[in-house]
């Protein structure tokens, strides 16, 4: 068990150090903020999305705050199905202290 923990900790430290390196390979972080999205590189839904951003921040914001909870709800429901399938009791827990 101790060896397993040593391996896990070692791998985690390495992954943390490597992740920064790999992420940096994409190039330096863009310092200037993009106020107008560049639509030239996109087609399909991405082009529509960037155009929406450029045309109306209100619509863009409204759509975002609808999409986020809907996707969250969907993921939550899917997880419910998976957890039930595994056989975990998801309705009871022991009150450990007050």
């Amino acid at each position, binding site marked *: 068990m101790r060896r397993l923990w040593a391996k*896990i*900790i070692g791998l*985690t*430290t390495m*992954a*943390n*150090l490597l*992740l*920064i390196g*790999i*992420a*940096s*390979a*994409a*190039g330096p*972080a*863009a*310092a*200037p*903020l*993009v*106020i107008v*999205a*560049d639509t030239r*590189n*996109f087609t399909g839904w*991405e082009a529509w*999305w*960037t155009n929406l*951003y450029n045309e109306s*921040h*209100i619509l*863009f*914001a409204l759509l*975002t*705050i609808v*999409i*986020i*909870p809907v*996707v*969250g*709800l969907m*993921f*939550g429901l*899917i*997880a*419910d199905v998976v*957890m039930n399938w*595994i*056989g*975990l*009791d*998801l*309705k*009871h*827990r022991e*009150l*450990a*202290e*007050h």
Partner: protein
Amino acid sequence: MEFFYVLMPIAGVKIFWPGLIILGIGVGIIGGFFGMGGAWMVTPGLNILGFPMAFAIGTDIAHMAGKSLISTMRHGKFGNVDYKLGFIMLGGTIVGFEIGAQMVMWLERIGQVDKYVRYLYLVLLTLIAWMVFADVAKKKRKDREAVAAGKVVDKLSTGIEWHKTLHKIKIPPMVHFKEAQIYCSAWLPIFVSFLTGWMAGILGIGGGLIRMPALIYFVGCPTHVAVGTDLFEVMISGLYGTATYTYKGRTELVAAMIMLCGAAVGAQVGTVATKYIKGYGIRIAFGLAVIGCAISIILKMLAKAIPAYGGLLDGSATVLILGLVSAMSIYIFVRMLAGAKREIAAKKAQVSMAG
């Protein structure tokens, strides 16, 4: 390697998408387990991955809203969310947050706001860590004394019990919170949420880090209910934050969605883990996370004070935060897995006995 990078439509930067998923999983586990948004972990992580700071904050808040919704749903099923308490506290949090934010504007005009905010943050984290570990030490002492006196150790014993004194204040209206099993003046949670919201507003954080211990030590919630109710608050404030940041054009929905894929899994793991770890286990892990957060802030302050080693100290702070997220996530995941295994084995044994 190109496959691992995705061009963000709004921010216009190429991002290493597996990094987003890993970050999502880690912060999902920790958020679901401790009942907080985890902006202090995600924002530097997103910044490292290449997001400009303003987009990092907006994207973090957007994913936080979705992730907290998933965790709240799961905690709600366990009976860990006191919605009545959550709604009452929401008012105090919003008013407190706005006043805190206005105070920061006022402090900005005086100057050196950043320095003072960091000091305040550090003092607050030290106090929280002290509170958690003093509580644990007191509980252990009580248990030891019970054993020495030949009494049975109370499984539901607690250390610090400030909430019992606060519950004696009977200013009407008195309210009964069913899930939290508390009967107190409605003004207590309103006042506590106002204070925590005010501090969160000054510090520019979501507030889960402060609200969770405040719910335990001042309002008197059991740890699990504090975690669940706090997540409910994080969900509402996350949605509000998403709306304002997105309206200002500072949210990258594609990145938030990618993170949400990981966070959805992580949130489930973190939330289910609370079923197998006792309240004091959660408190101790939380205290350690707070200490890690405080050390990273000290490193960032040192980086500013000693520019010659600025890069090294800043990098160390980031590695520390990411290391902390990884270590805690792995610990919680392993404990959840062990607990789930035990539960399934027990169920199988019951079925075979009945058969």
